[in-house]
């Protein structure tokens, strides 16, 4: 497991199994058949069920909170692209590293078990004189 420092986010991982997808559908009220109906999903260009993008996106918020504490989330912002679908039974892990471009900014991602980024983008935390908390 990656060592956590203030320059890298503490990783947070989840296995996105059928149970997790259905639980998240109930949490959000999002029963889009592409997530919950294998027969429908198989008929689409995606070729099968994909998990809700935000199911995995939440891991980035959790990675930030685990690294900097929940108090640091005030004023935090995320800007991400859902780059690849997350398939049923994928193991995904969120992480990130401090960007060299701008204080308080982190390059963030969620990667699957093959190391492929399924979500990628940036997160920005409240910036103090000392830098991002």
């Amino acid at each position: 497991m990656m060592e956590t420092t203030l320059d890298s986010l503490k990783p947070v991982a989840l296995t996105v199994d059928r149970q997790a997808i259905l639980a998240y559908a109930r949490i959000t009220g999002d029963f889009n058949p592409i997530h919950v109906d294998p027969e429908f999903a198989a008929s689409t260009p995606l070729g099968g069920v994909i998990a809700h993008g935000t199911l995995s996106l939440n891991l980035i918020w959790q990675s930030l909170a685990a690294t900097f504490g929940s108090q640091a989330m005030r004023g935090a912002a995320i800007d991400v692209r859902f780059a690849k679908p997350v398939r049923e039974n994928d193991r995904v892990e969120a992480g990130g590293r401090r960007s060299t471009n701008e204080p308080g900014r982190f390059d963030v991602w969620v990667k699957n078990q093959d190391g492929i980024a399924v979500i990628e983008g940036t997160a920005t935390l409240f910036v103090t004189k000392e830098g991002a908390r």
Partner: protein
Amino acid sequence: MAAVLTFDSFQPGASMGRATEVIDAEVLDAWRQLYPWDAAAADALPSGIATVLLMRAYMRILTPRPPGNIHARQRLELLAPIASGEEVTTEIECVGKELKRERRYVELACRASGKAGRPLFDGRMTIIWAA
């Protein structure tokens, strides 16, 4: 029964509506079962609940939808912690739409406020609309 919202229905600059709700114990329990490590400050909800409120508002406001829409991009800024039991109103506005490589992209802006109208979060979501 209302007609399905199609790409042609979207008018950039038009409010799509607003939805108000409180995250109840059932939803919060389900969240904690799914993400048991996710702890927040004692009197606040986990940060990711903002995403849940956004998605629940999207589900309620933009309906009925064609099956197979795909969430392509998300921006979200947390302006203040959401308190346990706080009533949250989320407004969604269409801010753009574009046909690109035979895909229908819809751009939605959202703004959520809580008790006494205090701002809670702002966001943008890009959806590839199915029809």
